[in-house]
């Protein structure tokens, strides 16, 4: 029983971002560990030695664009250039597809601008056979697995070359041959599915591991919890990635718990490693991903990775962020831009220069344009589509009688 002291009445806390439109962006409270400051533990380190990581931020690239500390993955120049190219290609693709949407050639689009390092570095740090369970903002995974842009474009345009038969909203790709799972419109559902896939791989004595992605906002769904629970209980070989890009449509990450804890901290409750990494630092993302993948491959179980980044673009083409956040916030994001940072690192190392960068930008843009031209030659939303008959396929493996009847009904008009 309370001791009778009279306390003030209760009051409810409603989270509020540091700045709203018209106010100056404020990242003052964001604690940034200096590059190179956080030690890299052995991949075989026990979880009990890792409980400090969720409170840190692993960074490799410093403000002078040098790679520091033992998290530096020491990638060869070719790999770094490849990473740069993939990130730039992803961005060029995004830019172009937004234009396509504005031209009314499709209904919708979602960019990954500012977050390209997440998908590209992670795809490169994983093996080609590993299975990816993405959200809608990891198009970079497909790009980094050299998946044809043409195929992606046809999906976005929903034309008759769209392998998904015009059924999915643009950007909800599926690419089995790229080890890229069908994207769901329902947030978070893929997280525990990835755990199930990883469990199956382990059950079968396979060597392939799984990786999955959700946004900061999506961590609030029950599926996030199911994924962590099953991954921990069965020690599934899976990387569970939280892309903390600060925003979930109009709500800042405080509404998912970010005011009180990092998302990496969630791992502590399940006795699994929780690593928090500068998501705009290609090298750091690569290194942490490789570290977690090695653990998984060694039967040391799952890792939760929080990738701290910033959603520089609107949520989607249906969104206008100027209604809920300062317009300059993206520009002032303390972790900078992932492409810019890797580019400067390469320049600093003497492997790259402004001219080559501009040339590559142009080359990629031309490439995207050429691909788009071909994609559009197969039609755009509304001008070309799969036959209405196809609507009745794939509901089940075989078209059952009642759907055959309905198909006939439709055909008869």
């Amino acid at each position, binding site marked *: 029983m309370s001791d009778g002291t009279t306390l003030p009445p209760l009051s*409810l806390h*409603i*989270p*509020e971002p540091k700045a*709203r439109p018209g106010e100056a962006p404020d990242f003052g409270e964001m604690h940034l560990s200096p590059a190179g400051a956080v030690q890299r533990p052995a991949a075989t380190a026990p979880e009990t030695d890792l409980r400090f990581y969720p409170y840190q931020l692993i960074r490799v690239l410093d403000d002078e664009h040098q790679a520091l500390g033992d998290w530096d993955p020491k990638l060869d120049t070719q790999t770094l250039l490849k990473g740069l190219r993939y990130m730039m290609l992803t961005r060029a693709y995004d830019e172009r597809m937004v234009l396509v949407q504005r031209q009314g050639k499709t*209904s*919708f689009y979602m960019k990954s601008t500012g977050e390209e390092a997440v998908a590209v570095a992670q795809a490169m740090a994983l093996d080609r056979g590993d299975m990816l369970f993405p959200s809608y903002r990891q198009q970079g995974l497909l790009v980094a697995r050299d998946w044809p842009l043409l195929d992606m474009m046809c999906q976005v345009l*929903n034309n008759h070359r*769209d392998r998904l*038969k*015009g*059924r*999915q*909203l*643009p950007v*909800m790709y599926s690419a089995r041959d790229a080890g890229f799972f069908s994207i*769901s*419109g*329902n*947030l978070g559902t893929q997280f525990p599915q990835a755990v199930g896939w990883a469990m199956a791989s382990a059950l079968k004595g396979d060597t392939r591991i799984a990786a999955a992605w959700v946004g900061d*906002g*999506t961590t*609030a*769904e*029950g*599926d996030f919890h199911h994924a962590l629970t099953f991954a921990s209980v069965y020690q599934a070989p899976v990387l569970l990635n939280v892309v903390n890009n600060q925003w*979930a*449509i*109009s*709500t800042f990450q405080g*509404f*998912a*718990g970010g005011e009180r804890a990092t998302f990496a901290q969630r791992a502590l409750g399940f006795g699994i490693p929780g690593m928090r990494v500068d998501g705009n630092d290609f090298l750091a993302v690569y290194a942490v991903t490789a570290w977690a993948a090695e653990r998984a491959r060694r039967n040391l179980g799952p890792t939760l990775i929080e990738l701290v980044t910033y959603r520089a673009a609107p949520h989607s083409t*249906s969104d206008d962020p100027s*209604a*809920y956040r300062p317009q300059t916030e993206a520009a002032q994001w303390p972790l900078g831009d992932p492409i810019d940072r890797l580019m400067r690192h390469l320049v600093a190392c003497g492997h790259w220069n402004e001219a080559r960068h501009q040339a590559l930008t142009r080359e990629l843009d031309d490439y995207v344009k050429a691909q788009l031209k071909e994609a559009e030659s197969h039609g755009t*939303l*509304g001008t070309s*589509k*799969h036959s*209405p008959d*196809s*609507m*009745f396929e794939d*509901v089940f493996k075989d078209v059952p009688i*009642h*759907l055959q009847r*309905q198909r006939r009904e*439709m055909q008869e*008009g």
Partner: protein
Amino acid sequence: MAAMNMIQAINSAIDTTMERDENVVVFGEDVGYFGGVFRCTAGLQKKYGKKRVFDSPISEGGIMATAIGMGVYGLRPVTEIQFADYIYPAFDQLVSEAARLRYRSGGEFFAPLTVRSPCGGGIFGGQTHSQSPESMFTHVCGLKTVMPSNPYDAKGLLITAIEDDDPVVFFEPKRIYNGPFDGHHERPLTPWSKHAMGEVPEAYYKIPLGKAAIVRPGEKLTVITYGTMVHVCLAAVEQAQVDAEVIDLRSLLPLDLDTIVDSVKKTGRCVIVHEATRTCGFGAELMAVVQENCFWSLEAPIERVTGWDTPYPHALEWAYFPGPDRVAKALKKVAEA
């Protein structure tokens, strides 16, 4: 009176109840500062403060559960599920908890919550922004299920829903947020400001749950429908040139059986239209009750025009949507049977 579209009417309904009853609170994904992805709660946080209108974590289950707890405390929570397609993570709390609380506690506890959710297709939303799951809720005893077809009804029904002491699932056909879409997607949309039901009183008024509206009287056959399909059916009636009586159910549960039965007894023929998938859709129940109550008056088989039993495909949306042609065909068939 003011010209309002559905969004404004819904906003006005919430505003009106919030003004009258300080226990009404509003929360959900993006509904607070931003005012909702469809803007239905725009301006309310500014007017009533963050403690009564606030954003929530992306957790439909958590939204529903905390709304139940708030309802038990004595508040009247009005929550938004951003799309009806995303209501399933909240399904257990709605079906196992909100719907059964009064019953299992012998009437001691109840949760007077209202769940608003945009439903239906026709906006190129693809398979996860187009669903009409109403019949999953009408099967659950203890829930009331409502779907308005116009701004006037939307406001009156929503006020009733919020003030109702039972949990109400309030589906808003998003295709008609801005105007009475009649299925002719190739034509420009008439705005609500040009429609009689877009004239909405600014003041408080209620429309009872369980009272259908006869939106077009007729003698030759009865059309039972709700939501967007009301307007499609009216267009189809014109097209088919059949003297049909068109019933807008407005509330599916409770159901206005009397209006249905009176009409079908009069016309002897019946067509049931909804956008949801066919098998076990609400049309099945309507067919059942018409058959049970009007068997001896029926002169022809009842027909259903519905969404196909497939997901709602993005590019083939207009092949999926049960538009005026399909409805008109059914009207003629039944009229002539």
